């Protein structure tokens, strides 16, 4: 995966900022994607390109259980979120949807807005092509990788039932 970084170094970016409740009257993913990060950065949807990354601080995705937050970010083309840490339900939702939520310590201080990054999920490495740096992240737990490989929790479940 390769793309440019959109850095929001703040901690506790919450689901109300990622997809405000005023848009929760629909689960249409294209519609949700049009409002991704609207209350955090109203310009985000206009500048994000397919495959780009969001880089953030601690406890990204805290608040509501709305999976709409993952769908909105995924729908607008974000390849992965790289954060210092994630809130529990957001992390679970991401795995269940097969969307990489990558916990990478120090990332929000090292990466600058606009840096070109390459993420290697298998190796557990983020390469900062603009700065010539590498950051390691702890690989996903096995069960999470299995779910992601299956394409999400429901596919995993169906596969297991044969």
């Amino acid at each position: 995966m390769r793309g440019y970084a959109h850095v929001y170094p703040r901690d506790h970016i919450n689901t109300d900022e990622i997809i405000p409740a005023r848009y929760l009257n629909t689960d249409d993913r294209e519609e949700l994607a049009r409002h991704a990060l609207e209350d955090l950065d109203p310009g985000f949807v206009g500048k994000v390109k397919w495959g780009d990354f969001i880089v953030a601080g601690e406890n990204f995705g805290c608040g509501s259980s709305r999976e709409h937050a993952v769908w909105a970010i995924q729908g607008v083309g974000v390849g992965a979120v790289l954060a210092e840490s994630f809130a529990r339900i957001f992390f679970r939702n991401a795995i269940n949807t097969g969307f990489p939520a990558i916990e990478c310590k120090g990332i929000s201080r090292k990466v600058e807005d606009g840096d070109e990054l390459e993420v290697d999920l298998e190796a557990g490495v983020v390469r900062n092509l603009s700065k010539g740096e590498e950051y390691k992240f702890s690989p996903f737990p096995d069960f999470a990788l299995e779910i992601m490989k299956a394409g999400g929790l429901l596919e995993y479940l169906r596969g297991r039932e044969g």
Partner: protein
Amino acid sequence: MTITEKILAAHSDRDEVGPGELVEARVDLVMCHDVTTPPAVSMLEERGMDRVFDPEKIVVTPDHFVPNKDIRSAELARRLREWTRKHGIRHYYEVGRHGICHALLPEEGFVRPGMVVVGADSHTCTYGALGAFSTGIGSTDLAAVLYSGRLWFRVPESMRVVLEGELPKGVYSKDVILEVIRRIGVDGARYMAMEFTGSIVGKLSVEARLTLTNMAVEAGAKSGIIAPDEKTLEYVRERSDEPFHIYTSDPDADYASTVEVDVSSLEPMVAFPHLPSKGRPISEVGHIHIDQVVIGSCTNGRLEDLRIAAEVLRGKKVAPHLRAIVIPATSRVWLQAMREGLLEVFVGAGCAVSTPTCGPCLGGHMGVLAEGERCVSTTNRNFVGRMGHPKSEVYLTSPATAAASAVAGRIADPREFLC
């Protein structure tokens, strides 16, 4: 083992489990509402997995955008309603008989000690007040559990929250949990089970305990839990004939951390924008002019909360410039509040009284804020834009403080209003 570990072990046919272990647990009860359930249903339908594991173990209550605020929310509600009919899900609470999910399920006797409960809503942690393991999940998790009746969990570390002392006048369980979150931060209990103990817990009513566990997720916790006692059993037996199992933590159970709060010195608390952890004692608040007050939600919309608010508002008027909105959390609470004359107190004071709904709590409808407006609210979140415009502000308080603020037109100390 802790109470949480024991419940998870029993539901995954293990003698013992410890923090960090993954278990696949049987789920006893699934809560569904109008925002997160329709997408889960669509996921199942699209994959040809359209079945439910046990219609008796599913409770459905449209609550976020009801009575439907627009065409889109009406469509969500219709999809939800049609699905419940198709699968013979009896425990469906239509508008008029409905309530905010986390107030309704305990009140209707669905939640009992020792259960594993999940719901596609982050405040599902509320039910832990009755000694159940209970946690919030997303829509894909919900689809999986509706289909299979089971779900993967990572056994959480437990944080012990010890509450001792005497609650001073004007200080309630809401103030206590705001103080706990102020101390540990919004990620202070991330991924953990918060277990509330100490002599104060025993003195609190079950309703007041539900306020404590409700806000566990505001400290990042996976669940909040309180060991059952006589009050719990009385509450549950009044509402259910079903059997249940009582678990308690062993004296030598392992806790990742302990937080001790002597509540005797607490003042009414106000959580400032834009995090629940930005609590300040009322004496340090200063003059803050407000435009709206909301009394309600799964945190503080139960009967006891309305009684407290009515005690403050009785014979008074809300400030002329201000809107006060009171939302009983369930139809049952509404009816009882009417019988007790509480609604008359509210309307007489100049409040709007709404049918049960989440409404303004998440900036849905029934009290959305304009740019620059300030609201004192008994809800649980005050994130940017939570109740409306991204430049509006929400201050979280107890029902007493909210009612006092409604009268004063600014954030006010309820102790001046209580006899």
